[in-house]
């Protein structure tokens, strides 16, 4: 860490580990809420957070009560909810939550996601703000706008951690705009996309739309009609002017002949080749408020369920009853053996789910519950 501009970490990849858990929430929910709280800062800066399971991570997360070994005892219910140390060795960065509070993932009690995001601001070196709209305002607020961070928060974290120079950026949706990524925008862009058979080609989202298959990457789109390999391609706005962003996830519900295109916490509805109306919020599907984006989505015709994947967990939405199934989120690896990493895109066809993971596609037999084949993602474009 450094004292040059106040304390900050001298690196952009920071590790964290969770020590003692609260009994208020299932462990996997605590894992996801903590990860989402880190993602708030990752999305707004060039920081990356990596989960470790050792006790010597940069940021140790603990639940404790009263005296807990750091000279700053907690005070029972209410009052002080949590605290965190600024960047540094040893206790530096460590974040503690008062387990005499009732921690939840919703509006009742104290929302762990919101408090954790605030405390991780301290763990990264930020101080309290006088602006009531800022996440770094000292007192707890149960309701927050969809954008948890105020402009001031974003400016402050980027004042502490300037983007890493020269590092190629494959996932600009983590807060890097394509502007600072010369090879995706400007003169090189068409050239790269013409080279769609690049070995490490990955997709953000893949979905049927009508009688075609849409492949989204950044703000670029390939459209494959049936199995012919005369593929149309170009910026998404050429085909769908209303959509000026990239697409994180997409799925097709044949019964309604409708595709749903998701970008961060919003989604568009597409009928035929027309984008219908305005984007709506992901909460429409019944997600908790802390879900701000999903990695992939796929509709399984056989069960009438749409599956939404985020990090290492997933939700199941009943399209017939239009409600989220009870008991979710669940771990992906537990229900999809062999699929145990973040998914870029998912596509359903004739009883198989094709999980696009990096430059590979894992063909998953939904009935047999196993991966039966692995192929190259660019083979779907005829490479």
């Amino acid at each position, binding site marked *: 860490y450094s004292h040059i501009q106040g304390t900050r970490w001298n690196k952009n990849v920071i590790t964290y580990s969770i020590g003692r858990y609260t009994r208020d929430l299932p462990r996997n929910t605590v894992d996801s809420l903590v990860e989402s709280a880190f993602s708030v800062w990752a999305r707004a800066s060039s920081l990356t957070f990596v989960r470790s399971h050792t006790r010597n991570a940069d940021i140790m997360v603990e639940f404790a009560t009263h005296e807990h070994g750091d000279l700053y005892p*907690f005070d029972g219910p209410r009052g*002080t909810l*949590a*605290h965190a140390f600024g960047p540094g060795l040893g206790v530096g960065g460590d974040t503690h939550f008062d387990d005499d509070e009732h921690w939840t993932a919703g509006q009742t009690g104290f929302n762990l996601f919101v408090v954790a995001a605030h*405390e991780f601001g*301290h763990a990264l070196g930020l101080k*309290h703000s*006088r602006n009531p709209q800022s996440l770094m305002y*000292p007192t707890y607020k149960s309701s927050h706008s969809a954008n948890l961070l105020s402009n001031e928060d974003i400016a402050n974290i980027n004042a502490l951690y300037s983007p890493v120079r020269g590092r190629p950026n494959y996932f600009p949706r983590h807060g890097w705009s394509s502007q600072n990524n010369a090879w995706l925008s400007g003169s090189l862009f068409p050239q790269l996309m013409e080279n769609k058979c690049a070995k490490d080609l990955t997709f953000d989202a893949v979905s049927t739309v009508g009688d075609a298959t849409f492949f989204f990457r950044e703000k670029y789109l390939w459209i494959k009609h049936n199995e012919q390999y005369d593929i149309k391609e170009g910026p998404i706005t050429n085909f769908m002017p209303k959509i000026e962003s990239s697409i994180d996830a997409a799925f097709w519900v044949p019964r309604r002949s409708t595709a749903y295109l998701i970008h961060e916490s919003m989604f568009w509805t597409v009928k035929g080749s027309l984008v219908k109306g305005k984007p709506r919020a992901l909460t429409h599907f019944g997600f908790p408020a802390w879900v701000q984006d999903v990695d992939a989505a796929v509709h399984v015709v056989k069960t009438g369920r749409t599956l939404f994947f985020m990090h290492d967990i997933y939700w199941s939405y009943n399209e017939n009853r239009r409600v989220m199934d009870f008991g979710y989120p669940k771990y992906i690896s537990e229900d999809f053996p062999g699929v145990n990493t973040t998914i870029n895109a998912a596509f359903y066809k004739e009883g198989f789910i094709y999980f696009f993971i990096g430059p590979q596609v894992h063909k998953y037999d939904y009935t047999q519950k196993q991966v039966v084949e692995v192929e190259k993602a660019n083979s779907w474009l005829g490479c």
Partner: protein
Amino acid sequence: APTFMPETESTPSTEPQVDLKLATEYLQQYYNLEKETMGRMKRSGPSFTSKVKDMQIFFGLNATGVLDSDTLELMRSPRCGVPDVED
């Protein structure tokens, strides 16, 4: 039957003391108010008043230095344990 409500009875008579204790601990934890080695903290002591003002200014309240109801209500709000001012 009449119900006995001890809290109601006791709050008015001790409230100033309770408020002072709450405020003193709050300002010691979040605004670097020095702990008094001898005797009790005086509401009107120069450092106590100035720290109350600091806190009122931070939260955009009227900076009177007096423990008014808005100030006390804010001191009772659940919050982060990191101090508001440099330590």
